[in-house]
């Protein structure tokens, strides 16, 4: 059965589920980092590094899940690096993030050179659409386990920020380092841990790119998803659940270009592919304000001051 023009919304919906997973993981990681009062712009570099290391390990060991784990660990170490350097006095976290973007992509391209050609085993999908007769619907409802884990993680983080001691400590450090210090917490230590954990999630998000969709490793794999996820966190008002919805929205925007191409509209190909960037920018223009702090913004965050 051919869906014709209906294929566009179906593909966008499927794309929203498929493309949103890296956005989801990176934005949850960034959300955690920013809640502690630091911003890590280097998640773009961590994403690419995670994609490369995940693919490489999956190719060498034959186990994609091991690849996901190693991608997380690679992200964790880069996050740790960012956290430690930013703990030095008078070091600007935004600038270090830019440096990490460069270092992460550089290292990934360097070490990933041998993995551009070979085909690594990729992550399996769960077929939820087998009841449908249309192949488009079937492929739109192929859901990766990581997506489900990410959704569960959004719920868990949202709960943890409210209801656990850890969540409260992270939020306190992010809102007022003075208060945290007065309570006897080591501000830098909390922030380093939060940045490292955020790096882990971003690395896992990267492994999704290379191990599931698009499902190969090359140097053009990520084009700003990591950075868009940072903007997405601002849009989501630092709430993990909103991050989930925002990731779906961004995923859908990212799927628009290929979806239109599949029904034969090719003229504005590059412009359609720029939709996510335009959407990000439009959302930031609409939600930011020069005069007041954003609702829900951590008080210590430099990006909103």
């Amino acid at each position: 059965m051919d869906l014709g023009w209906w294929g566009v919304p179906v593909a966008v919906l499927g794309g929203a589920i498929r493309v949103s997973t890296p956005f989801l993981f990176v934005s949850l990681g960034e959300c955690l980092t920013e809640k502690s009062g630091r911003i890590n712009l280097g998640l773009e570099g961590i994403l690419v590094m995670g994609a490369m290391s995940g693919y490489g390990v999956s190719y060498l060991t034959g186990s994609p899940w091991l690849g996901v784990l190693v991608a997380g660990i690679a992200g964790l170490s880069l996050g740790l690096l960012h956290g430690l350097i930013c703990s030095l006095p008078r070091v600007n976290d935004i600038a270090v993030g830019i440096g990490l973007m460069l270092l992460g992509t550089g290292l990934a391209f360097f070490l990933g050179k041998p993995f551009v050609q070979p085909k690594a085993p990729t992550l399996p999908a769960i077929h939820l659409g087998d009841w449908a007769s249309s192949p488009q619907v079937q492929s739109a409802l192929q859901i990766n386990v990581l997506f489900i884990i990410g959704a569960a993680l959004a719920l868990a983080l949202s709960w943890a920020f409210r209801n656990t001691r850890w969540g409260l400590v992270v939020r306190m450090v992010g809102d007022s380092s003075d208060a945290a210090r007065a309570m006897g917490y080591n501000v830098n230590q909390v922030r380093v841990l939060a940045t490292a954990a955020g790096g882990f999630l971003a690395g896992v998000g990267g492994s999704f790119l290379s191990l599931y969709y698009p499902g190969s490793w090359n140097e053009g794999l990520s084009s700003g998803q990591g950075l868009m996820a940072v903007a997405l966190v601002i849009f989501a008002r630092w709430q993990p659940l909103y991050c989930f919805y925002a990731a779906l929205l961004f995923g859908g925007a990212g799927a628009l270009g290929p979806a239109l191409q599949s029904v034969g509209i090719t003229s504005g190909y590059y412009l359609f592919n720029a939709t996510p960037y335009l959407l990000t920018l439009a959302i930031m223009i609409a939600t930011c304000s020069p005069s007041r702090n954003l609702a829900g913004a951590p008080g210590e965050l430099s990006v909103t001051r």
Partner: protein
Amino acid sequence: MPADGAMTLPAGSAVAPAFTGHRLRRAAEAFVIPFGALVVAMILFGIFMALIGKNPLDVYTLIYKGGFSSGFAWQNTLQRAAPVILTALCVALPAQAGLIIIGGEGALVLGGLAAAVVGHAAAGASPLVAQVAMALIAMIVGGTWIAFAGALRHYRGVNETISSLLLTYIAIALFNHLVEGPLRDPGSLNKPSTQPIGDALMVGHIPGMDVHWGLVYGLVFCAACYVLVRYTVLGFALRIVGGNVRAARLAGLRVGGLVLVSCFLGGSAAGLAGMVEVAAVHGNANASLIAGYGYAGILVSFIARHNPLAVIPVAILVGGIGASNGLLQRRLDLPDATVLVLQGIAFMVILAAETLYGRFRIFQPREQQK
């Protein structure tokens, strides 16, 4: 009181030498710390090379050979440094007003495209007029593009680092769309390009060297920016905004206008870099314009601590490392991302070294050594 001899001198006689001494020490600090950081970065990169089984000394010898050993290598280096000098200003100028702009690549690409269109339209005009027109349009387009990020920051509170990079992605999409669509030269088959501007309008080479005049544009732009930032009221006002926005407002400065001016000037430098690449190297606008010069400029400006004059030697250094890339690939079988790794390590070490300023007593004015 300290055991410091200088303190016992009569105050009057010590004023002038203490003041020059103070400046000397500050200058020495601004030189020694980044230089030391670069050395540390080279050691770290050397360890990395050793870990993957290459001799670090071989690597550095080849970088020297490829970038700085001969006249030919120097010309190659300067050719690469020319656009980077200009894109670094795109970071350095807004940084005076406290903004971190990383969208130079977008301004370069669109500036180059605009220059190519104007250059083609101006076929038959006198080269000088056409080149000035190309440079002006490129600067206006690039400047407006970055000023947009500055305006978003000032009027909407949108973080300029994120918005300028998003604008770069949008600029590249726009560039690709136009070059492969409406502005495509039907004759360019394998590599979509705009119509050529023609040999008559090309920017030539500096006499006696195989380096185009774009390098001189960059040097002049840097010197002008240095004077602007250091010796004019406008530059002083910019630095106040960068130091403390509230103080600037209290002093009655028009912060918005200053932010826009610094962004426009920075963007126009990057746009000019695009014009230079089109009018002196490629002859038309095509995908080769998206070569990462904008990103290299970010690194250069941060190493130079956003000082428009220091940008020049740093850009030459980075250009030289870039020029040696081919040699590294051929001789040592290293991937082309080797230079990116070195740049990334250098960037991180330089930023970490930011914490050292003011830590060494030898660089402090004597009065503060108590």
